[in-house]
């Protein structure tokens, strides 16, 4: 299969990101990258060679360059190795191929991530939730405990993010005792109220638990 990717008008490193993404996602035999600036031309060629392509064929018409390379299995493997590119994260632990979720339960036991600076902690938690949405395989469940329940009750921006996470099929469990303690039981806007028994089942179940503290 041959794929042509139009990366015209994109600044570095976007053309390389698109090229890598294409090699990772499909079993291509040939890839053609169309770019319209010199830096992108050189960087795409550099990247293709880095993953093992023979000298790519370049057709230039004015500032527009079409870079064509044959894709080998080894190249696809090399493009798939290493850190994931944004938007195509792979889970490499405990997941069967084709599995929709990572076999993990994530526990957020605070409305912040990390200790040291509260503002940063809040910024981080937002980034964290955003990233969960974007993962190819999100965790199967997300558990909110202690002040973590504020994320589903008081903070508009995290409520929205949690709703999106739920819409991806992730179970969002919110500790009932904690909601009660903060007098927030009637203000739950995302996820569902859960209890110690259900949460304990998650913790002791086959899925690994990741605590974000």
């Amino acid at each position, binding site marked *: 299969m041959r794929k042509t990717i139009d990366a015209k008008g*994109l*600044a*570095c*490193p*976007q053309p*390389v*990101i698109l090229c*890598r993404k294409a090699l990772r996602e499909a079993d291509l035999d040939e890839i053609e990258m169309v770019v319209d*600036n*010199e*830096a992108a031309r*050189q*960087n*795409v*060629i*550099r*990247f293709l060679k*880095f993953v093992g392509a023979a000298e790519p064929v370049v057709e230039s018409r004015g500032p527009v360059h079409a870079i064509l390379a044959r894709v080998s299995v080894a190249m696809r493997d090399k493009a798939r190795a*290493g*850190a*994931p*590119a*944004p938007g195509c994260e792979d889970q490499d632990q405990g997941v069967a191929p084709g599995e929709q979720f990572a076999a993990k339960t994530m526990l957020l036991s605070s409305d912040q*991530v*990390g*200790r*040291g*600076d509260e*503002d*940063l902690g809040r*910024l*981080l938690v*937002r*980034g*964290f939730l*955003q*990233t969960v949405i*974007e993962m190819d395989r999100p965790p199967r469940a997300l558990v909110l405990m202690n002040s973590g329940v504020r994320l589903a009750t008081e903070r508009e921006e995290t409520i929205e993010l949690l709703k999106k996470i739920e819409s991806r099929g992730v179970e969002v469990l919110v500790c009932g005792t904690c909601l009660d303690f903060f007098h927030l039981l009637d203000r739950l806007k995302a996820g569902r109220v859960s209890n110690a028994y259900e949460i304990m089942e998650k913790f002791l179940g086959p899925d690994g638990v990741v605590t974000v503290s």
Partner: protein
Amino acid sequence: MGRKKNGCPEEEKACCSHASDDTDRAEGGSSKAPGAGDLGATIWYYFSMGAGLTSFSRFAGCGAKLGAGLLDKALCGLSQRAYPDLIADFRHSEDAGVLRLNESQALIHTVDFFPPIVDDPFLFGRIAAVNALSDVYAMGGKPSTAVCIVGFPTDSLDVEVLQRMMEGGLSALQEADCPLVGGHTVEDGELKFGYAVTGLVDPDRVWLNNSLKGEERLILTKPIGTGLVTTAEKAGLASPEALAAAIESMRTLNRTASEILAGSRVNACTDVTGFGLLGHACEMAADSPCSLHLSARSVPLLPSALDYAAMGMVPEGTYRTRTFRMPFIINHAAVDDDLMNVLFDPQTSGGLLAAVDSAQADQLVEKLRSAGVSANVVGETVPGKGMVELV
């Protein structure tokens, strides 16, 4: 600054040059924040994706910079009358403008602002300030005052973000003993942040870029590769180690380096920014009564910078500077293509490149290192005519 002396088009400007080079930049990248405590850079990297400041910038990489052609057209033929006390103005390719005030003092004046290069507001503010202050240190001066310059998108960003940027900037200014005296904000579709800084220097000890004499060795005070690492970060490929090292480097003031260097004779100095190490070395050698030997293998690189060059994570400006500077470089064959791209990598908040008395170089490096500065001798002056020879 950054003009050739006739003020006319000549130089292909590098991406991400500091703003006293008249230009802005936008380098992609996110960051592990100071005060993030036990949070690993890896975790920060995942969290910051899609949530941080750099996503508010329309421009990717170096796109925010005003094109070289445009800028050259705007400045071509621009001149002003002679001021007897002017030591450096926009026609000189200096790090900052300098005006003699009296027998013992000259005023240094510089400005630097750009769109977010990291995702964390505090860190972005800090790096913007460190970068602006650097021009004063590169002239051998001490910063006196700073004013803040802000373009802020009130409809897309919370004012808390501005507050955090100001705090980050202030953390650097305080470390530099440089009072913040004011600022100016405008409503802007895209976030921009930076500072105009003044400083003082002894007019007889201003460190110009290209005043080599011929008996010097070159000291570099930070590793290079921030452009490659932040580009790789934008592509989601930067390792936590590389990112942490780049950020640590960008958030560090050149104050200690400058003060220690001032203890001995500095014949020429610049900070390594938009043109990359080799570009700035070329600038230093130009019009000198000597040439420079640059020992490519003794230049300290940020972790993985060389790998990212091989992977095509090369910022656009690298190619432009390379094309423009190649005629001034002898013995290209001494380094391979990837290392060449690291040597030309545009730096944000880079280190000082100082030409010091040969006899004092080793001792200075030792002093710098014991003060925590990552200093190395990377080259020396040799007989020649303004060229840079790679060895």
